[in-house]
């Protein structure tokens, strides 16, 4: 099997196996896996197989809303990963992006054409700064990025809540005052065509981010040097590349993606700054999305949509009498099967060899 084909086939098999495992568990709980699939189909499209209802765009809008932030956090994890870094920091970077967006949304008074871009840029810069810190510590003092990013997630959480409660003030101790319309991604047009879902213009920056990710990594000299550092730090240094600078830049850009996710949630899904009780899991979902998507832009987009849809399907499963946790189990097992890709590959190769001998191996 060629490397290219492998990249597409293996994740698909993992997804398939994830659903098989999910179905088995549903059967174990004494329910029909068919109603689980019915819920999932409905989550993605609104089509109700059981009661025979056609496509409902509201569901489509809602599942895209779920997918948007985790696509961005997926890009965040993947970007750091391409430079050989394991960043757990998307969650915190997202919160800092969110609080930065909140600040600009509340404090700046400008027409929408100026205000909204400023809000998004604030989110991006906030996340980038939060990402650059562990990058700097790694590059300068060789502090492991996993430890730093995990800790910085907690700092971000409490910093966010402190600022919301004590600087912007909150009447109900849960949220800030609503943002002005000029700061929001909301679109009556999009809401109308999706039957009043929360779908908003946020998908545009997400698509831009996906394209930009692929462009930077694959087409630019900067991406080339990031990949060189990621694959072999010693060879990059030997070739005269500034390894430390690349590490900081890579972490900052990873942070920027996550920060944008924070802004998109804050001024898209919501219209106020929020007190966050505990990590909401966008960061970890992003890791899963990046793993399933093979750290490639297109893969991340597809994996993000899949996981977004599964998230959207959770309440529907519950209404079918299927534990909503099943969706989580399917997600987790897809990630597990992706992690087992070498095993899957071995089985496939054996199968292929039996069919047509001598197709594998490329050493000369």
């Amino acid at each position: 099997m060629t490397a290219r084909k492998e990249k597409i086939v293996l994740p698909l098999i993992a997804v398939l196996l994830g659903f098989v495992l999910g179905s088995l568990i549903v059967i174990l709980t004494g329910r029909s896996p068919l109603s689980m699939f019915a819920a999932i189909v409905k989550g993605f499209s609104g089509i109700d197989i059981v009661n025979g209802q056609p496509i409902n765009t509201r569901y489509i809008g809602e599942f895209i809303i779920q997918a948007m932030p985790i696509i961005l956090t997926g890009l965040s994890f993947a970007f750091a990963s391409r430079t050989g870094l394991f960043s757990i920091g998307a969650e915190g970077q997202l919160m800092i992006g969110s609080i930065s967006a909140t600040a600009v949304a509340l404090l700046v008074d400008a027409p929408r054409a100026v205000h909204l871009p400023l809000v998004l840029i604030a989110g991006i810069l906030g996340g980038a700064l939060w990402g650059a810190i562990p990058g700097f510590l790694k590059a300068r003092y060789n502090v492991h990025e996993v430890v730093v990013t995990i800790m910085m997630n907690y700092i971000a959480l409490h910093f966010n809540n402190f600022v919301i409660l004590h600087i912007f003030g909150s009447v109900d101790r849960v949220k800030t005052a609503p943002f002005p319309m000029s700061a929001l991604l909301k679109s009556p047009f999009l809401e109308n065509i999706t039957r009043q879902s929360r779908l908003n213009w946020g998908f545009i920056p997400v698509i831009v981010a996906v394209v930009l990710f692929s462009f930077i990594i694959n087409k630019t000299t900067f991406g080339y040097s990031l990949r060189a550092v990621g694959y072999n730090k010693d060879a990059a240094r030997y070739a005269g590349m500034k390894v430390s600078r690349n590490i900081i830049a890579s972490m900052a850009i990873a942070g920027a993606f996550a920060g944008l996710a924070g802004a998109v949630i804050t001024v898209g899904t919501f219209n106020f700054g929020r007190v966050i009780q505990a990590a909401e899991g966008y960061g970890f979902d992003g890791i899963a999305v990046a793993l399933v998507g093979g750290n490639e832009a297109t893969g991340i987009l597809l994996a993000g949509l899949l996981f977004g849809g599964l998230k959207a399907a959770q309440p529907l499963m519950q209404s079918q009498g299927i534990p909503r946790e099943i969706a989580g189990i399917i997600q987790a097992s897809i990630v597990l099967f992706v992690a087992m890709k070498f095993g899957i590959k071995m089985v496939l190769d054996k199968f292929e060899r039996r069919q047509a001998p001598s197709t594998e191996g490329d050493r000369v």
Partner: protein
Amino acid sequence: MSYIVEMLHITKDFPGIRANDDITLQIEERSIHALLGENGAGKSTLMSILFGLYQPDSGSIRVRGKEVKISDPNVATSLGIGMVHQHFKLVHNFTVTENIILGMEPRKGPVIDIRAAEQKVEDLSKLYGLAVDPRAKIEDISVSMQQRVEILKMLYRDAEILIFDEPTAVLTPQEIHELMQIMRRLVEEGKTILLITHKLKEIKEVADTCTVLRRGKLVSTVPVADTDEQRMAEMMVGRQVSFHVDKGPAKPGDELLRIEQLNVKNVKGVLGVKNLSLSVRAGEVLGLCGIDGNGQAELVYAITGLTKVESGKIFLKDKEITNLSIKERIDLGLGHIPEDRQKYGLVLDFTLGENFIIHNYYERPFASRGILRRKAILENAQRLIREFDVRSGQGAMTPARAMSGGNQQKAIVAREIDRSPEVFVVVQPTRGLDVGAIEYIHRRIIEERDKNKAILLVSLELDEIMDVSDRIAVIYNGEIVGIVDAASTNENELGLMMSGALRKSGGASRLVHEAARA
């Protein structure tokens, strides 16, 4: 005499290349059979088939007269076939014994019977004269000892047929000599050895029979006693090969590289280079020879900027570079063929084309305004592949990881020579290469010299140092113990200096004098 292994009419295709084309190999019991061929001639593929790593597309294998199907290495092991790979497969923080028993641990009840294992390892080590300490940790022992652990691993598994894949590539001349003795001892005790190599000297020294492959095809199988190095080289390359480098006299010009009173710490934190002064002129090759680990690596890393110096100064074209970044040194005209090709030389997960541009990926023609230009990168790769005969299955798009060691080396050499640096630090440029490639690379190095570049050649191969260099500096224990004229020295004199027994004060004093004048 009977054949213990017979590989009959073996053919194996890889994408874009026929690695083995109808090869028949018959090996006599209790002999050393050498398999000779250029890099990429198909030696490793053939042995991988015998060891069960690949399946042949056609052909059959017989072991002790019985036809067998070796579907994976476990089958090979059960047939008594063992392999010492070029890159060792050892767990570094395990002891020798723990590594050897890995996968087939002897038990005493529920626990591993490490005592019994150690005893068995020690007995085997004694029987074959390996002198390995069963309790030593891998990370604490030398490369040649690690290789012996690999040998012991096979013996522990009762292997009768031992495949050595270019075993001497990582060894010093002294260690090579010891390995040859070990091989003879193994044969005396009834083993059969298959030796993959492209070093003719070793074949002549130790092998009984030699099979030559060229570009995937069998050329001939000959008794070693009836042939000589020149004839084997011709069979392997397919044309006349000259072992000696044709070169005119050097015309040394200005000093391009000058090192003054240099002190560099090694990885253990002690001085690996001590108060060393040296200079290389435009238009000359200065060979640096010494036994491995006498400060060569520290000196090279200090010049190229991979490590910091303790004290002393390094000048490149009269500009001090002691504390400049690697990038600044490269921009000033420093080039470096690194010793460790997989650590420094290549990004293994990059394609060959990407590896070729690693120094100037951001410059025209490979990029403009920060965007890579695929076409220029591809053309550059195709040119270098052609010029240096780098063999790879998918040309510029081949992942470096999928290339054989020799071709990886050729790729690095091609990239660095093509940049034509003013001051060129060349370390072990032909390690793992066959005579044809060595001849070509030596010629290219001399061409660089004749373009008035300064070349510092660091090598463990005395032949290479003596053939290519104009002057030879000998390093011992971090110090230069003498500088001699390549034309008027000999192996014996160099050997004495390398072991620290002889100092040539004439050369050294001249250098001190030069440094003082500058």
